[in-house]
């Protein structure tokens, strides 16, 4: 049973996105679509036919599968309900970031492959954001890894209970900024629109339709939930099961659902109250967050906690 905890991420990730959308609608005084809408969207897209441009190469067809598989592989690596899982021994935080980078690389290639202006624009922007976000995420996660003496995510979770030192607070702040950038949310990107010239993620997948688009979207949902789970695991691990009994897992599932809902509320609140910044102002924000991550690491080494 504990081996199948990654299925929770894969099958509930559209729900998480639906909940965030619903919460956003609620905060903005709209009714909004139901929380199950992402599932209906995915089902509809899987049924529909595809339009593929004649100028595309095999990369265009391969990218959705690579992107989806890499997101699913990332889901294997994070502990969801319990830290006792064989799969978490397959890789650590570095592997997780590498798997994400693989997915991103193919998505950017696919954006360029169709040869449209929007795709290339999206790819170029995505890569610019990536070089700022990846090292920041690494540093923030390393701060937690030093505490545990291991880069394995399950061991990091085992080693701590809650944020108990200034360095972890700084690392958490940096990781939150990294997550908003990685999941394509305001202030970095706007997930709600296909029509703006400022889009990043939507720009890259503009040429996709039907099944491929469904895979791309699903992969994005999975990636989002993996990142949320990672932040929850590392910085608020209280309540996660350290054993594999049924009662423990059920309790852990309840706590996990509550924490995830809290995370969704925070995300929706940030999205509703902030405006998207101009792309050329992004390095300022992300650079600031990088300094936070750097300070967290330095402070951690200095204070020894």
């Amino acid at each position, binding site marked *: 049973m504990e081996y199948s905890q990654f299925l929770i991420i894969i099958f509930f990730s559209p729900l998480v996105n639906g909940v965030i959308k619903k919460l956003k609608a609620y905060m903005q005084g709209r009714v909004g679509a139901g929380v199950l809408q992402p599932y209906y969207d995915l089902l509809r897209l899987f049924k529909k036919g595809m339009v593929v441009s004649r100028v595309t190469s095999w990369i265009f067809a391969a990218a959705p599968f690579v992107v989806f598989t890499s997101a699913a592989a990332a889901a294997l690596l994070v502990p969801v309900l319990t830290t006792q899982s064989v799969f978490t021994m397959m890789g650590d935080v570095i592997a997780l970031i590498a798997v994400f980078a693989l997915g991103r690389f193919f998505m950017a290639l696919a954006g360029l492959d169709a040869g449209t202006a929007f795709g290339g624009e999206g790819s170029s922007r995505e890569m610019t954001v990536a070089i700022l976000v990846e090292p920041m995420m690494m540093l923030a996660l390393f701060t937690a890894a030093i505490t545990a003496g291991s880069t394995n995510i399950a061991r990091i979770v085992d080693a701590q209970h809650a944020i*108990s030192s*200034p360095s972890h607070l700084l690392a958490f702040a940096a990781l939150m900024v990294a997550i908003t950038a990685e999941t394509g949310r305001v202030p970095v990107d706007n997930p709600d629109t296909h029509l703006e010239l400022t889009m990043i993620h939507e720009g890259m997948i503009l040429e996709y339709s039907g099944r491929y688009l469904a895979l791309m979207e699903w992969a994005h949902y999975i990636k989002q939930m993996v990142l949320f789970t990672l932040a929850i695991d590392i910085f608020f691990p209280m309540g996660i099961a350290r054993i594999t009994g049924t009662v423990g897992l059920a309790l852990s599932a309840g706590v996990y659902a509550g924490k995830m809902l809290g995370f969704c509320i925070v995300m929706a609140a940030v999205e509703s109250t902030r405006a998207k910044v101009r792309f050329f102002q992004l390095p300022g924000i992300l650079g600031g967050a990088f300094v936070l991550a750097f*300070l967290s690491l*330095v*402070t951690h080494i*200095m204070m020894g*906690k």
Partner: protein
Amino acid sequence: MKNWLEVYSIVDFISVGLLLTAVTLNAFKSIESYVKAYTINSWLLACLVAAVAILMDEPHLYVAALLTAATKGALIPIILRKIIKQMRITHIIQPAISNAFSLAVSSLLVAVVYASLKTGITVTGFSRNVLQIAIAVILISLFIMITRKKALVMVMGLLFMENGLFLAGFSLTFGMPTIIELGVLFDVLMGVIILGIFAVQIRRTFASADLDNLTVLKG
């Protein structure tokens, strides 16, 4: 209360907060946010002094905390806002180098300070990390003073430096005798007023508080 302070290492949290407010100066573009950062910094300083007073059973530190909060946390920001209003300055601060670069430099400064004071100093025993943070704050504010052009921003750098010096002295000696602290606070207050008037005068004479213009006075 005492246990609670110790268990959650409140002193460390507050001192990192002090460092953070100093680092964020590098990212700000408006003078108003400088004043806000200074206010937060001063209140954190007062909180730190109060926390140590509880932690170490040193009642005379309550006075120091109150004085810090009253002058640096309330009076000086009010005076600064008044000066800003009087000068009618535009809210843009022009640093000599870009904000991102200046952030990078200040984080490097922190790393250098931490590396050179590796073991920490535990004279007073409430924390071994406060001195490094104090010196880092001093260096960062010095850096701000070097790289900003406007006279008033330099005054802000000076004020931050004074907070850092207070913190450094405090971490080594539990604070100086109250009478000396009173004197220092009074000095800072006078300094702000005089420098404020000075900045207003510079602006009136040269139609700008940009200190680069003063170089034309050279023979």
